[in-house]
C-alpha cells in the first residue's frame, strides 16, 4: 500500500497543479493569441517575443525570476502588496510556475485557431446588429472552439511535465509540492528505479492521451468555409 500511496499522491497533486495552471493561463493565453491573430498594434513583436520566452529560457531561470518577484521584498512580495500571496513553497506556487511555462503553447495554439477564421465572418455579424463582443461570442468563439480546447490540452500537458521552474518556486516537499516530475527525479536520485519507472509510465500515458487528443482537435475540422469562394478586395478596416 505504501508504494501505491507514494505514486498516487504525486499523481493527484500533479493533476491538481496542472489543472489549476491551465485555468490560470487560459484567459491571458487566449487573449494574447487573439491579439496576435487579429490586431496590429505597437509593440506587437515585443509581445510575441516575450510570450515565446518560456519556450527557450532554462525553466530554472523562469523559476528564479518568479522567486525574486514573489520574495518578501519583491514586486509581488508581502512588503509591497501588504499581504502574503502564499505562493512560495506551496502547490499554488507550483501551479503558477507551470502556468507561466505553459503560456507559449496556449498562446500559439489559440493564435493558430483564430487565424483560421475569416475575420469578415465577424463583420457579417456586425452588419446583422451584433456589437463587437456579441459578434465574437456568436461567430469567432464557436468556430475556434476546437482549437481553443487543443490549446487548453497542450497547456495542461506542458504544466504536467513542468520541473525546473516548479522546483525553484515551490520546492520539493513530499505530499505538498512534490509533483510527478519531482517524484521521478527524487526516485532516481535515491535509487528507487522501479518506482521511478512506474511514475514515468503514468506520465507517458497522460501526456500521450492529451497530446493525441489535442492533435486530433487541431487537424479534424469538419466544418470549414467552403473552398472555391475567394474573397475580393482588402479586408474591412
Amino acid at each position: 500500500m505504501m508504494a501505491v500511496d507514494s505514486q498516487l499522491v504525486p499523481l493527484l497533486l500533479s493533476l491538481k497543479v496542472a489543472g489549476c495552471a491551465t485555468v490560470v493561463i487560459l484567459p491571458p493565453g487566449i487573449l494574447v493569441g487573439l491579439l496576435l491573430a487579429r490586431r496590429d498594434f505597437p509593440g506587437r513583436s515585443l509581445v510575441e517575443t516575450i510570450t515565446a520566452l518560456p519556450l527557450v529560457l532554462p525553466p530554472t531561470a523562469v523559476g528564479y525570476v518568479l522567486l525574486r518577484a514573489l520574495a518578501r521584498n519583491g514586486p509581488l512580495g508581502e512588503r509591497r502588496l501588504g499581504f502574503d500571496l502564499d505562493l512560495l513553497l506551496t502547490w499554488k506556487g507550483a501551479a503558477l510556475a507551470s502556468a507561466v511555462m505553459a503560456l507559449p503553447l496556449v498562446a500559439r495554439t489559440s493564435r493558430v485557431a483564430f487565424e483560421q477564421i475569416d475575420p469578415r465572418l465577424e463583420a457579417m455579424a456586425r452588419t446583422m446588429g451584433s456589437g463587437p463582443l456579441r459578434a465574437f461570442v456568436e461567430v469567432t468563439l464557436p468556430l475556434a472552439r476546437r482549437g481553443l480546447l487543443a490549446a487548453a490540452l497542450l497547456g495542461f500537458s506542458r504544466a504536467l511535465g513542468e520541473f525546473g521552474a516548479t522546483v525553484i518556486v515551490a520546492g520539493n516537499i513530499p505530499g505538498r509540492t512534490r509533483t510527478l516530475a519531482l517524484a521521478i527525479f527524487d526516485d532516481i536520485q535515491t535509487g528507487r528505479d522501479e518506482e521511478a519507472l512506474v511514475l514515468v509510465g503514468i506520465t507517458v500515458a497522460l501526456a500521450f492521451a492529451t497530446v493525441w487528443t489535442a492533435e486530433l482537435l487541431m487537424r479534424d475540422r469538419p466544418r470549414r468555409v467552403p473552398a472555391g469562394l475567394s474573397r475580393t478586395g482588402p479586408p474591412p478596416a
Partner: protein
Amino acid sequence: MSAAPPDAATRWLDIDITVAQGPFRLTVAWRSDERFLGVFGHSGAGKTTLLETLAGLRGGAQGRIVVNGEVWLDSSRGVRQPAERRGVGYVPQDLLLYPHRDVMGNLRAGHRRAVTSGRTAIDERRVIEVLELSDLRRRDVASLSGGERQRVALGRALLSGASLLLLDEPLASLDLPLRRRILPYLVRAGDAFGIPTLYVSHDATEIRVLCAEVLVLSAGRAVALGPPDDVFTGETVLPMARAEGFENILRARVTGMEEGVALAEVEPGCLVRLPGRGLEGAREVAVALRAEDLILSVEPPAGLSAQNVVRGRIREIRETTPVLDATSTAPQQASPAEVLALVSIGETAAGRGVPIVVSITRQACRQLCLSPGRPVHIIFKTQACRILAAR
C-alpha cells in the same frame, strides 16, 4: 448627373461620400426614391467599396449617408454609426455564410435584430417559401450548391430586420445557366418584400431586369445615373455594357398563348411572339435580345419565317468603340466594321418608346441609307428571345 430635386427630404437614399484608399478615391453623390437601385461598373470601379462603406465596414469615409431619414454618417458633425446600428442586410460576393450553423441557423442569424428593431414584417415561412429553402433547412452549409448558398445568404439578409439590402454581385460566382435560374428569385424577393435594395453587378442584363435606376461607376467616379434603359444605351455606358455582348431587355405584358408561342405586348400596339415555355400563367415577362441577333429593314418585310417584325424609328447611329478601359489614356479607336443603330420602338405622341440597340455592319448602314428619324422594322426570331424572368 441630374441635379437633386428640392424635395430631398422624402428620398430614402441620400448619400454624398468620398472614400480614400491609398491612391484610389471613390466619390459618390446619389439621391433616390426608387426601391431597387443598381450599381454598375467593371471590377476595380469601387462598387464593393461603396457597399462596404454603406454597411459601415470601412473606416475613412467622409461625407453624409442618410437612409430612410436615419443619419448613418455625417463626418462634418462627427456622426459615424457602427455597422451594428445601421440596419443593413449585406450579401457579400463570397456570401460568408456561418460555417458553424446549418441553413436554419444562418437564416436566423439576424433574428435578434429583427425583433429588437421591430422590423419583423418579413415572415420566415414566406422567405423560405419564396426562396424554396424548405428542403434545405437542416442542411450543413458546406454541403450546399452554389445556387443554394446564394439563396440562403439572400434569405439571411431578408430576415435580419434590415432597412437596406446590399447585394454584391450575387450571381457572379455562378455559371450562366444558374445565374438565369437565380435571377427570378431576386425578382420575386424584390416583389414580395420590397426592402430598398442596392444591387451591385458588372452584368448590365441583371441590372436592367431588376433595377429602376442605375449608377455607373468607373475608377471611383460616377459616370452616369438614371433609368437603366437610358443609361445602358447612352454614349458613355454602352461600350462598357457591351463587354459580354449587349443584350436588349424588353419588358412585356403577356396577352395570350398560341401553339406554344406566347404573345406579349411591349407597348400598346407593339406585339412580340416569345417562346412559351415557362410562361403559362405569367402576366409580365422580361426578355433578353442580343443586339447582334436583330435585323433591320427599311421596307415592310414579307415572306419571312421570323415571327417578330416590330416597327420603330432610328434615334441615333453610333460609332462603336472597344470596351471602355478606365486605365487606358489612349484615344478610343472606332471599330471599322460595325455601327450601332439605336431604334425606338413603341413611340407615341406622349412617350419616347423603348430604346433598342441593333448591331449592324457599316456597309449595311450605308446601303440602306440609315439615318436618325428614319422609320425601320426590327426583325427577330421567336427563338432569339431569351426569357429572363416572369411573374
